[in-house]
């Protein structure tokens, strides 16, 4: 297969240096920038403009839908399909339906959160061009990476490389991917 350029990746030794570099790079007007870090570095997402609060809403609505379905199920069973007189209580004895409603809400919230997080992150995904970056495994160990992607409107090899070098990167490499 022909290899094409995915982007240029710079390596840093600490989260602080990465964050400072990300600010500089964004300041120069690059938009398609992504960071790869050994842990969640606070502030990087805001700097790169990738903030996404949809997971929160997915979990919230998952919980609401789960709880509603849980209650409706009990309503259908206890009032419509299988009414039963237990100690003279009304068919719709809602206080005793609270525990199951609650558990259904929690279950759906957690599961939709899992699916939502994975889905929004585009996982599972067998391969990603960034895996072809030299030494990228260290992003799971002790190195911090910043990648300017080739589809950035401002992308030109010379200026990208010199801009990244100017941020104090340990190394700057091209990422060639199939």
């Amino acid at each position, binding site marked *: 297969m022909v290899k094409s350029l995915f982007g240029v990746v710079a390596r840093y030794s600490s*989260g602080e240096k990465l964050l400072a570099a990300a600010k500089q790079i964004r300041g120069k007007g690059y938009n398609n920038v992504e960071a790869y870090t050994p*842990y969640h570095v606070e502030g990087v997402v805001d700097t790169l403009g990738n903030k996404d609060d949809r997971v929160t809403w997915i979990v919230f609505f998952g919980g609401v839908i789960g709880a509603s379905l849980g209650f409706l199920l009990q309503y259908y069973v206890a009032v419509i399909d299988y009414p039963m007189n237990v100690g003279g209580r009304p068919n719709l004895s809602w206080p005793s339906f609270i525990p199951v409603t609650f558990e259904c809400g929690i*279950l759906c*919230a957690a599961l939709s959160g899992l699916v939502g997080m994975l889905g929004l992150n585009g996982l599972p995904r067998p391969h990603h061009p*960034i895996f072809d970056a030299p030494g990228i495994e260290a992003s799971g160990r002790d190195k911090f990476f910043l990648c300017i992607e080739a589809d950035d409107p401002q992308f030109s090899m010379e200026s990208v490389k010199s801009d990244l070098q100017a941020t104090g990167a340990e190394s700057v490499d091209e990422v060639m991917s199939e």
Partner: protein
Amino acid sequence: MIDQKKSISVEEQFIEGEHTYGTITDKIGAIPLSQHQPKSWFLMMGASLLLLGCLVTAITLLLFVGVGIWGVNNPTGWGFAIVNFVWWIGIGHAGTLISAILLLMRQRWRTSINRVSETMTLFAVMCAGLFPILHLGRPWLAYYLFPYPNGLGMWPQFRSPLVWDVFAVSTYFTVSLVFWFVGLIPDIAVLRDNAKSKIARGISGILAMGWRNSAAHWHRYETLYLLLAGLSTPLVVSVHSIVSFDFAVSILPGWHTTIFPPYFVAGAVYSGFAMVLTLMIPMRAWYGLKDMVTMKHIDWMAKIMLATGLIVGYGYAMEAFYAWYSGSFYEWAMMKNRALGYYAPFYWALIFCNVVTPFFLWFPKVRRTLWVLWIITIVVNIGMWLERFVIVITSLHHDFMPSAWGNFRPMLWDWAIYGGTFGLFLFGMALFMRFVPMLPMAELRHQLHAEKGEREARESEQEREPVGGAH
């Protein structure tokens, strides 16, 4: 601002020794990828397989013969199965407490111990879930417990705490599994990147699902992790409360009390922390994890045991007091029977294990002497099992009419199946030690960063401010 910083920076070092992001990752990540395990691991695996065999035998016999092989009778229909169910599920609760509640309270020391305790939760809930199903009599019809449209035209009775239990325990297991797995994803990605063998790389590659440590990934991941902690916190409280409703909603003397939910939850945390310590003390020695699971962690877990032990002791006192103060003839008769009747030795052994033993934990020296602490955790585990035994059995065997009284004696197969669940539990833990990073690497890296930042801030502050400097 400076004052605030100072107040949080005292004693906030939970990673000892000279560690970097790299050494932490290598240390923990190397264990599942290495071909060599400590000798003690083989010992644990061997013992667990023996007990697991015992469990399989006992369950097979149970399926062929029926619950008659147990000591259950009328009036004591619940017997060992329910005692063990409540005990195991209580043990599971400490895992969720450590991983969720301590996370929300920003107790950073939880980082080193959360993976082990969450795994303990998963296997403890598996052991727990086994018992009510086997106790059904016809376990192959366990699916009757779930609401599904069927030819009988019947539905579960949603006003019954036993049905709530089905929902609570199955939700608890699923959510705990999701929480555990989400926490594991970045660490599996580390294994994927470091594995030498093709099989290890293949399996961890599939499980990591293409995780690539990108900032956008981390952002959504952290959001979800925090939300799952927020969901698990009320969940864990609800689960043991609902388990206690199995008892409290009935009208039996000794069960029908409002103190049960909080008292059960405190007891669950108590036994759970005891079990975490029982596992953690040998594990940190076997795998050389003493830099991450420090004496401070052990000390603080022992303190939580002490605190919850005191709550449990208060629960016993209130149970006895209200049995008398309520003026109910049956309640007071139950209490007298508990303390002086056929099962009195169990009751006093329980008081010794759960109320007297934790008092040793007031002494810092006891909390820091590992073998003494280890023995105390075992004693507390036995004590909590005795508590479940006393609650289930003494109320059932003497209820209202003397003509309906009867004694319960556990049989060989009661013990076999109980011992067997230890096999399942230890087998699971041994597999976990062998194949899964035991401590959360990504979170430890984050914590190391936070601690370093604080140390640097403190040092620069000292440079700036001479002694007695104004704030």
